[in-house]
């Protein structure tokens, strides 16, 4: 699997927020075997060191970072944040989030397309956090995005794949664009389901960070993603309306008298 020409063996992208401690964060990233972690940027006072400490931890892990524009409500804010992230993290990758509403954290797809155009023209490699809407996805691809990241469910909701049909249609519509289910997953079976649909990868954070044992959950997600991908490659059965006996009926003994 590759994103913008970067080959990756792990199909799990892991967020770095909300872990109970830096040690648990480090252990969870290691257990997940993720090669890409998401990061963000926030205000820091001259006297504070927390951001610097966090950055040292991430650098020590040798993983690739995908900075986000979380919290941005307009295309302009997202573009400025992306520029700051590119300099700070020294990467053209940006997880582009433009949020309409703090209650639902639903993507503002209009602002998203607007920001994606500007950023792609400016040399960024954009990972847009979007919905499963195919028209929006088409616009994002037209704008130059070579990865799409539709939501599974609202951020942090742990509901899984709210619209599996829509995600399946998206896979069929974009056979050659890497697709990542981003957000809303709660348990490893949700991630396996995304992979069974043929998605290339899964991005999650809260489901691991706020689990009772984040390190074990990170490993569980990694295994589920591997299993789901293997199942997709093995071409699963389509659901049927009627029963079909698994044991052959030919050659059955005639015992009816």
């Amino acid at each position, binding site marked *: 699997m590759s994103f913008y020409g970067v080959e990756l063996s792990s199909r799990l992208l892991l*967020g*770095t*927020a*909300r*872990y109970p401690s830096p040690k648990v*964060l480090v252990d969870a990233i290691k257990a997940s075997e993720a090669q890409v972690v*998401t*990061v*963000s*940027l*926030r*205000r*820091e*006072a*001259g*006297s*504070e060191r*927390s*951001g*610097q400490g*966090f*950055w040292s931890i*991430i650098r020590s892990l040798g993983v690739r970072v995908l*900075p*986000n524009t*979380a919290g941005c409500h307009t295309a*302009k*804010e997202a573009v*400025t944040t992306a*520029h*700051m*992230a590119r*300099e*700070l*993290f020294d990467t053209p990758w940006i997880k582009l989030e433009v949020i309409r509403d703090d209650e639902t954290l639903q993507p503002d797809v209009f602002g998203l397309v607007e920001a994606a155009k500007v950023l792609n023209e400016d040399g960024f490699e954009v990972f847009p956090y979007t919905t499963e809407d195919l028209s929006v996805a088409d616009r994002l691809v037209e704008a130059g995005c070579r990865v799409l990241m539709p939501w599974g469910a609202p*951020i942090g909701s742990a509901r899984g794949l709210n619209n599996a049909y829509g995600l399946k249609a998206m896979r069929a519509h974009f056979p050659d664009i890497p697709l990542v289910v981003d*957000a809303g997953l709660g348990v490893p079976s949700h991630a396996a389901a995304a992979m069974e649909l043929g998605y290339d990868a899964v991005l999650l*954070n*809260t489901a691991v960070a706020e689990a009772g044992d984040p390190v074990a959950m990170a490993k569980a997600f990694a295994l589920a993603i591997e299993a789901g991908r293997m199942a997709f490659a093995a071409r699963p059965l389509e659901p049927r309306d009627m029963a079909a006996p698994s044991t052959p009926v030919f050659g059955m003994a005639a015992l009816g008298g």
Partner: protein
Amino acid sequence: MRIFVNGDQHDIEPATLALALDALGYGGKKIATAVNGRFVAAPARPKVELNDGDKIEVVAPMQGG
């Protein structure tokens, strides 16, 4: 001259962005900056003269999802 850094008011002598950041304790830190909503790249900070009322944002790496 009055400037706002991350929303907090500071009274400083007229200065460039680079000098103001040093004076506020940001010297040597991994940060990115914007002035009045516009990104200012690190190499440009010594050339940006601040004006009264400027709003400066200084951000650092943070955990994110």
